[in-house]
């Protein structure tokens, strides 16, 4: 049971927030105190309960325990049913970010239709992340904090199998050898 006033304030702040909060944002509301210690103490308090406190990409929020999903799931419908193209594109961005559209297309072997990236950006999972200095200065894409929160990832290091893929060289930048293998459709892009 928590009696410490500051920890109570951090708990209430996180509980009332409509979105995940960084420790700095928490401090703006909860006032002066050791936010990090309070978060640790709360994480312990909630371990094993029906609600848990989690960190996703540096932001904290309460959510229901995953093992209770079967009770709470209102429909079998996924919140956002992604097409195969969108799912693969999201995975490519997450595992390779920042990545250009041409690189996504090179990996998939087909052009991506206009709507695919739009859907991912509309969902708040993908964002433009500047341009790569170099020929054509292509726009780059990366994932968002919301992406990490939605898929329950503490950080990109938690992406399933990312270490194995990296070790196998499957996440290496596309070398020019690949461009020789690229399909005409990709070359025609843009």
């Amino acid at each position: 049971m928590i009696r410490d006033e500051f920890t109570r304030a951090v708990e209430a702040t996180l509980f009332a927030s409509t979105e995940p909060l960084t420790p700095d944002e928490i401090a703006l509301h909860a006032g002066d105190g050791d936010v990090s210690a309070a978060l640790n103490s709360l994480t312990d308090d909630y371990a094993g309960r029906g609600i848990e406190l989690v960190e996703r990409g540096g932001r904290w929020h309460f959510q229901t325990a995953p093992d209770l999903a079967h009770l709470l799931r209102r429909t079998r419908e996924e919140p956002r049913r992604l097409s195969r193209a969108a799912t693969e594109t999201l995975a490519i961005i997450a595992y390779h970010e920042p990545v250009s559209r041409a690189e996504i297309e090179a990996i998939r072997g087909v052009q991506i239709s206009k709507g695919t990236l739009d859907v991912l950006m509309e969902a708040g999972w993908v964002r433009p992340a500047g341009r790569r200095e170099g020929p054509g200065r292509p726009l780059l894409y990366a994932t968002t904090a919301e992406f990490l929160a939605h898929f329950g990832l503490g950080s990109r290091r938690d992406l399933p199998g990312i270490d194995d893929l990296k070790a196998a060289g499957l996440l290496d930048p596309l070398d020019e050898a690949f461009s020789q293998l690229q399909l005409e459709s990709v070359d025609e892009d843009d």
Partner: protein
Amino acid sequence: MTDELPLRRNDELTLSLGAWEGPLDLLLSLARAQKVDLARISILQLVEQYLVFIADARALKLEIAADYLVMAAWLAYLKSCLLLPKDPEQDPSPEELAARLQLRLQRLDAMREAGARLMGRDRIGRDVFIRGTPEGLRLVRKAAWQATAYDLFSAYGGVRARTAPAMHIVAHRAVLTLEAAIERVAALVGSRLEWARIESFLPSTQDSAYRRSALASSFAAALELARKGRVVIQQDGPFAPLMIRAA
């Protein structure tokens, strides 16, 4: 080689080409059908399957997109390179091209699987739920206006100075005071009995304003000394030189 085909061609061909997202997707499907690790797949066998598939599709007069044919041409070239005696000059070698194709298939396969694993995670709104009715947080930013008393007074001073009727202040300039002039003329005239022009009593200067001041104060000094009976002043006519000597 064709007798090793694990595919039952007719079954596959009942699917239209539209079932694949491009030739790489089709290649990956064919590769997976070999039921071996993608890293150890027989590229030659895969190439053969693809070419047979395309040939069959053409025989059935299916619409085949251009990129499938481009891939078929490239794979036919790769196949011939792999089968023909080695040309050491060829760069990249056919084996390397085959390895790259293999890596490409592995890459696509890895991302396809990663996507599936992502979708299978505990997702917010499907498996885990955030609070249904959060009160919401509001941060109201309020300006704390800063100004000091000095700011206030100098601002008022500034307003008054800016809007006051123009006031001319005479700037400080060099002058010879009357007292200094009396001292100077009295000392210079000494006990001389010769007449001397008043200008000869002035300090030497390039400053015309100072010179005018010195002339005026020296004249007043001469009058004062004359009143005391210490000097005599003489002028022959209006605007004539003013002459001074000791009394």
